[in-house]
């Protein structure tokens, strides 16, 4: 089983603006380099999943971590993005990689837009 219960509730809610940590990590962390340091919005809470780094060493992968779907603007990811401003990338990120983005105004606005499905 890849899923497992966690003792703590999800730290983030759908619509929250978050930043993915720009840290280096040893092991199979499953956070791709190109999204590190970039911001996005939580669009789905997938549930809690076993820790991929521990799983990669044949450990039980506990404690489990909450996994989120983060939606990012392509134009935020790539300075030379050639598509449309409305284009997005969704990526699944484990909670320890996420930091809240502290801009109340932007956050509230982004939250409404995300729920409406336009961010």
């Amino acid at each position: 089983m890849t899923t497992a219960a966690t003792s703590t509730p999800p730290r983030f809610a759908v619509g929250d603006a978050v930043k993915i940590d720009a840290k280096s990590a040893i092991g199979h962390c499953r956070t791709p380099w190109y999204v590190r340091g970039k911001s996005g919005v939580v669009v789905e809470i997938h549930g809690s999943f076993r820790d991929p780094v521990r799983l990669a060493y044949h450990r039980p992968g506990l404690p489990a971590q909450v996994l989120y779907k983060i939606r990012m603007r392509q134009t935020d990811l790539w300075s030379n993005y050639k598509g449309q401003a409305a284009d997005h990338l969704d990526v699944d990120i484990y909670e320890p990689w996420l930091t809240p983005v502290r801009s109340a105004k932007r956050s509230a606005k982004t939250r409404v837009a995300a729920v409406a499905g336009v961010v």
Partner: protein
Amino acid sequence: MHDDHDHSHDHEHGEPHAPRRDHDAGPATLYEVLERAMRELLIEKGVFTAQEIAAQIDLMDSRSPSLGAKVIAKAWTDPAFKTALLADTRGALAQLDIDIGQLAEFRVIENQPGIHNVVVCTLCSCYPKMLLGVPPAWYKSLAYRSRTVSQPRDVLAEFGLAIPLSTEVRVHDSTADLRYIVLPERPSGTDDWTAAALEQIITRDCMIGTAVPVAHQQD
């Protein structure tokens, strides 16, 4: 359309088969030796049996894009199933006696007017094998994995799929223990088609997101 046999090879009719290179002709490669040594040791240690390996290969070979097409056609023709499929993919697939195993959870993402979805795994090549079978070689290529996240419209154009500028392209990087398949839009003009006819136009690429179903003229 030839319905009597399945073409997995890509030569033209009448053209003689190229001589096949048997997989065991010539000296074993490094990785073949490594695989054989690991397999024999694990069997010897009782971790699993040769029969279990054969059964797993049979299971994998039983999965192919036609299984995924059956699921999509069902979703197109049965609104209650579609709702269930989007809400609880594992449970909905179990209704069709499709067991996706315990290695990953599945999610279905729906194309909608104005939103086109495409799936990639930049980290390795995570793919919904239990529904679509073994992935195509290009899905695992460095070019597809790196360019789909940064130049998705160019990549889709190379597959022959021009996405209008008014449509959002939404790329899904399948980085964790979730496997994604795309639920494409049902083409117009297919209202009176049977599920079996619909399945014919739901190709593997339609479920990855590098193609959309096209309603061919029915004979």
